[in-house]
């Protein structure tokens, strides 16, 4: 197993750019529109949003790495690349189960609060999306890991921001037709517009 650790500046810039790109420029929730289910479902309260973002970060990073390893050291040598979707889903399911056990141990209250959304991270298209997209980019191990972590960072950032805004929205003077999910969607779309301002910040693929 060969893992490239480039220690000179260019590689560090490269990794930093990956982080910025996945977290902000190509934010998975607001720009690529993946993972909207937990984004809308868990953002009612700030505490549950923070718990969810921690859980998803855990899952995303691990699953990105595990998917990379599974693909490159099990599926590819055996010529079973076509099985990657199933394999990745299995990997993600296992990691989510593991995360559930950890959350239950660390904070049973968070476990209760997240409820069904914790196992639903399995079906979070952002998680599978990260695994598949990082594969498409033909990332190295480090790149895959950072890709997953950056995606998780972006997800967490957006989730927490949105939760904070939704808390304010529940007590604001919203006109009747807009109350509830409607104003939440409007807010999300405005956030998405805001994140479009990041486009062009980083050109991924270069140095």
């Amino acid at each position, binding site marked *: 197993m060969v893992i490239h650790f480039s220690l000179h500046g260019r590689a560090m810039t490269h990794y930093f750019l990956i982080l910025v790109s996945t977290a902000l420029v190509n934010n998975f929730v607001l720009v690529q529109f993946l993972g909207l289910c937990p984004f809308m479902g868990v953002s009612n309260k700030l505490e549950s949003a923070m718990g969810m973002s921690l859980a998803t970060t855990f899952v995303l990073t691990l699953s990105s790495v595990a998917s990379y390893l599974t693909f490159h050291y099990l599926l590819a040598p055996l010529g079973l690349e076509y099985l990657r979707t199933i394999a990745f889903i299995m990997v993600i399911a296992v990691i989510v189960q593991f995360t559930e056990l950890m959350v239950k141990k660390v904070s049973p209250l968070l476990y209760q609060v997240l409820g069904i959304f914790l196992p639903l991270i399995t079906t979070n298209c952002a998680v599978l999306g990260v695994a598949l997209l990082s594969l498409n980019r033909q990332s190295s191990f480090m790149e895959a890991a950072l890709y997953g972590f950056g995606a998780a960072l972006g997800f967490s950032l957006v989730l927490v921001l949105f939760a904070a805004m939704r808390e*304010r929205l*529940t*007590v604001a*003077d919203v006109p009747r037709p807009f109350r509830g999910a409607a104003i939440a969607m409007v807010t999300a779309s405005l956030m998405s517009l805001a994140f479009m301002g990041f486009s062009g910040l980083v050109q991924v693929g270069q140095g």
Partner: protein
Amino acid sequence: MARAFDFPGGIHPPARKAASTQRPIAQAALPRRVMLPLGQHVGQPAEPCVAVGERVNTGTRVARAQGLISADVHASITGEVIAIEPYPVPHPAGLNESCIVIEGDGIRDDWALLPSLDWRSADDDTLHARLNASGVVGLGGGGFPTQVKARVRERHAIDTLIVNAAECEPYISADDMTLREHAADVLEGAQLIAKLSGAQRIIIGIEDDKPEAITALNRAIKAAKTETVEITLKAFPPRYPSGGEKQLIKRLLDREVPSRGLPADVGVLCHNPGTLRAALQVVRDGRPLVSRIVTLTGEALNRPGNVEARLGTSMHELLAAAVLDEARLARLVMGGPMMGMELSRLDLPLVKSSNCLIAATLDELPTAPVEQPCIRCGACEEACPASLLPQQLYWFAKSREHDKAELFNLFDCIECDACSFVCPSHIPLVDYYRAAKSEIRAHAFEARKAEHAKHRFEFRQARIEREAAEKQARRQSRLQANKRPGSSAAGPGKSQPSNSQSSKSQAGSPQAATASSPNTPSAAEADLKSLRIAQAAAKAAVRKAEKVLARVSQSPGNKSQHQGQSDGEIEDLEVQLATARENLAAVEARLAAAKNAAADTANEAAQQTGSPAPDQEHTK
């Protein structure tokens, strides 16, 4: 000393004090009837100590302070007590309160004075005792019992006494006139309180729109220069609410009172000039608090001014003496237009916290406009003198998000109304905050009550369990005693009761036998071991409960109105301690029983090698 510090925010409402400062303080006519509410101060209402029909002199104590935070009430005229009943009193919702009604003839004024004291030479205990009997409370409108505030030295180190002569609220000029005419008394009262509290200097904070008062004070300071405590006068441009004690402390000393704290936490004591004068009067002249200086103003009065009026006088009498034009009267406000209380009737009694009565016409204080939605302009945040976020507090109060409101320091709001004053949507912000504070306090009370009920329930469970364990232990030892060969002599005698006993225990004894039978000695030992562990845990729990109780009962409370709460807290901890003790007793009973059982099975095992079971007769 020359640097000017400042507090944030604040507003500049029109002062409107000219009308009531034209004339010197007048003495109001002696009323023929006074109504003295028993709860005209912060804390527990006083309890009457006179009966209907009793004759009292001016200054006789008619109601005794109850508890730590309370004040006496004294008769303000000479006459007969004709009723002790609920009557309407100044209250935001117009509720009634128990009052002592005294009727006199409007002429006789016999004083029941206390012996005069020289505060310079009297010892602190005498002075405290005198203040206890004085009925003096904060006369700036706060109504906090002065004798409690005077004991601040017991819990805090005070270095500065601030005389709060700012009087920043529009219309009110009672302190201004008091200082113009009685500056020497106020200063002497300040020195008295400084002596009691241990303050090393006195600072008088006053707004510079009161030049006559400043002159009078400077004269008095010069005259008092031979005294030991340093007295300084600091005048500053007017801004509302510079008279708020936290704002004044920030302005004069640049010290910030911590959140939910008291001025004593930063070594400062604040007093109103009227209060200081009253404190001096009770010490030097032996006069309990029976009168106060009140500003009568408003355009519906043709003769506005300040009067010294007896407490309990009907406001209608005072306003009539100020030539009230009832046709033009639209609103009657007690206190100032910002923090005052609107009254619905004229015949309410003057209370200790009535520093001003505004008889306003409709033009002067128009009807409040209709509230409109918040436009999030942020003007309220600019005006807040406590650096809070009124807009956020508004949203949280409105949606009853109490924990968020507390997080945003709702309880640091001094309810000065500056935010409502500037709000372009005319939102009555302070009303929201008052409602939220009240709800939070009510919830906290309910939560404490529920917690206490839970502890009592747990105690009851523990007690029942202990009783059951002891009963079981007793029954077991009786059973063992019956099984023992040595007790055969007592057998026939108690065969009757013991039959029912043993028939019952026969059902139980196989179980007991299996539990502690010689066939499974390890089970018995395991039982003993787990019981010993339980005993150690129970002992630890008792020790912990004792420690917590000792710590809480010895810790100093602060002078807030949480005295009742801390009593409740101690009682709750006692219940928890009792529960822990019951648990320990239950475990020890079970342990003793298990030990006996183990010892007896060991004996049995030793005996079974000897004589054949003589216990058969007893288990019939």
